């Protein structure tokens, strides 16, 4: 049996930012069936299509670089997969391209985000933020609250034109939810709470772009 892996890069923007990752998975699955993509299913009692996503986006965040790996049971040209899938989405989901994956998601170390809503934050305040611990409260699995320092997960945070660019940990064991950073910045008075997050790229540990 052929088992070609295919990587799909897509954007999730606009009203799709109100849709959770779990809901996105279901939306993807029905779209794949409609588009008649020859998806490989898992074996077992309750077969479901094999779909592997990169780190989920938090609710209210957008992205122009989401990645999804699927496996096929028979060949289908990448352009055709792309063209077929594009027809199956409403505004907010867009297939950027479909290609053969050359590396695994495990190589990803960082995600790059464009963050708006902190225009009034001064350079000095940002420097101050990065100069020490960034303590945030986190709920553990057993419901207790614990304080952790997210500073090590912030590789960089810089002003670029009218927005901030943040490079944050995105490996499974060092993932930082961008929303956690934004909320912490708001608590420090750097913003007023109405912020926007857009994921714009993935990077390896050596800062080479991952796609």
């Amino acid at each position, binding site marked *: 049996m052929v088992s070609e892996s295919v990587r799909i890069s897509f954007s999730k923007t*606009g*009203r*799709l930012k*109100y*849709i*959770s990752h*779990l*809901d*996105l998975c*279901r*939306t993807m*699955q*029905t*779209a*794949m*069936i*409609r588009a008649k993509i020859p998806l490989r*299913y898992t074996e077992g009692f*309750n*077969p479901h299509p094999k779909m592997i996503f990169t780190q989920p986006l938090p*609710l*209210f965040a957008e992205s122009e670089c989401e990645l999804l790996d699927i496996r096929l049971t028979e060949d289908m040209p990448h352009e055709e997969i792309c063209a077929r899938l594009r027809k*199956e*989405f*409403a*505004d*907010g989901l867009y297939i950027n391209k479909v290609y053969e994956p050359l590396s695994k998601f495990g190589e990803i170390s960082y995600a790059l985000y464009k963050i708006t809503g902190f225009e009034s934050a001064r350079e000095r305040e940002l420097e101050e933020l990065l100069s020490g611990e960034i303590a945030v409260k986190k709920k553990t699995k057993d419901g207790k609250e614990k304080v952790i320092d997210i500073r090590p997960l912030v590789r960089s945070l810089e002003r670029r034109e009218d927005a901030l660019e943040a490079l944050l940990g995105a490996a499974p064991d060092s993932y930082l939810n961008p929303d956690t950073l934004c909320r912490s910045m708001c608590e420090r008075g750097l913003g007023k709470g*109405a912020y926007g997050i857009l994921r714009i790229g993935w990077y390896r540990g050596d800062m080479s772009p991952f796609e």
Partner: protein
Amino acid sequence: MLTDNILRNVMKPGRYTGGEFGQTVKDKTKINARFAFCFPDTYEIGMSNLGMRLLYHALNQMPDTWCERVFAPWPDMEEQMRSNSLPLYALESGDPVKDFDFMGITLQYELCYTNVLNMLELAGIPLLAKDRGEDFPIVVGGGPCTYNAEPLCDFFDVFSIGEGEEALCEMVRLYIEMKSSGSYTKAGYLRELSHIEGFYVPSLYRVEYNPDGTVESYAPLYPDVPGKIRKRIIKDLDAAPFPDTFVMPYIETVHDRITEEVYRGCIRGCRFCQAGMIYRPVREKSPDRVNEQVRCLYEHTGYDEVSLLSLSISDYSRLSHLTEKLLEWTDREKVSLSLPSLRADTFSKELMDRISSVRQSGLTFAPEAGTQRLRDAINKNISEEEILRACSLAFAGGKSNVKLYFMLGLPTETKEDLDGIRDTAMRVAEEFYRTPGRKGRAPQVTISCACFIPKPFTAFQWDAQDSLESLSEKQRYLAEIISDKRLKFNYHDAYASRVEAALARGDRRLGRVLLECRRLGMRFDAWDEFFRYEDWIKAFSAAGMDMGFYANRAFSTEETLPWDIIDIGVTKRFLLSEYNRSRESKPTPNCRESCSGCGANRLGGVTAWCPKASE
């Protein structure tokens, strides 16, 4: 305007944003009528409703009409809407409902009436029909509750009685015609509409009451207004308009799958069941048509789960032919089939094998009553042997969970019938150990008891509902005698059932109660977490009405019933004879065995099991 800030402050913002794949968007400048289809419950429930899917499609098939969806906002969203002055809007365009030509509200259950009034208020539309001028939308009601919508008469301009696929289109077409010819006035339009079969314009009737509070008479105000409104049916389901795709919800809904209707109506005549009467006569789709529609929906939606919908799926005359056809391709495509609404007497090994190929952990049967005598009285023509045989098949097929539905407070019920509930469940549990080839450890038999609610257009429409004290006592008694570990006992809230009974058999004077409910800020009464019985008591007493008069009074078979103005095809004479037979515990054969002359054949219809019906 709907802003990011509002959506950040509510749970499940995806309920309010629209824009799903499959929604209909039209160019407003080319539209002559805009229809806001309102479902007075959450997005997740409304989006699961097949009727809404059918009517959304039927209306949008008209090129100059645009139908959009509206759901009841959850209280967190309601709060945001009120504090941000955001009026109720339709999901497709985001436009306020107030600006539409029609506000169509589907009435699925009585306890959502408080949501209906809340939605009118949130839309900025005066609650009372008489206070609404020419500029407000026509407020039209449809759905099962319109068979007695008297408590809602003050708030609606018109009700569409019966199946709406054709009727709603005729209603909109008349509107467009009158508007374009310049002859439109709201009053003139409603009067004209009353001449079309299936439309009930409540303001065109005067109701008189007797000194004892019962209805004396309904009289049309004008000679051209019909004295009775006959429900509409679709005669040939194979030819009925059918949506080839659904709006695909992003967020998970209650029935997030393909639901395919197999037939309408029911050959059974359970005497407590309203659906069994109001949807007569039985009309089936052909297996080929069902198969073709399911296939089409699979390709256009991408859902990998199909549920076959009907009042009793095993009564479909060509079920094995149908499942054969479906399984030819569903297995290969990894599409799972589910068959809800199984009857124990027609449940076969063959059927079991077919549905065990899909994911389903347990089975549910509805004996409804604990003894044969009471089952005969309610005309649930099913024997204990049949129940045990069906459960045995389920056990042999690898299931170990069975759920049994019963009703408490049925007319003629005695203590023996309550004991019978436990005994039936015990024998089901014992059957498990006698089943060869059974798997698993111990069986789990869940007894689920609802409270009997007398409903209009049933043989039991005249019967009193059991008092709260009596129902609670019966629930306590059952909880006490059901002590075996293999049995689990659940029961429904008797308080909500009482309110439901009062509204179901209510007359126009209950409109005052609903207004009081709105003043008290009531909504989402179909939800346990919001239903507050004390509030209903307050609303009834503020309106000077007595809940017991409607819920707990035995109506006389002589009195004029508030719903006598509606003609469902089935005659009052038939219902009365069924009532009388029930007192003698005499069953009545189903439509397949022989015709009992219910009267529904007068409506016509292409049908397999009503031999007297003709086109």
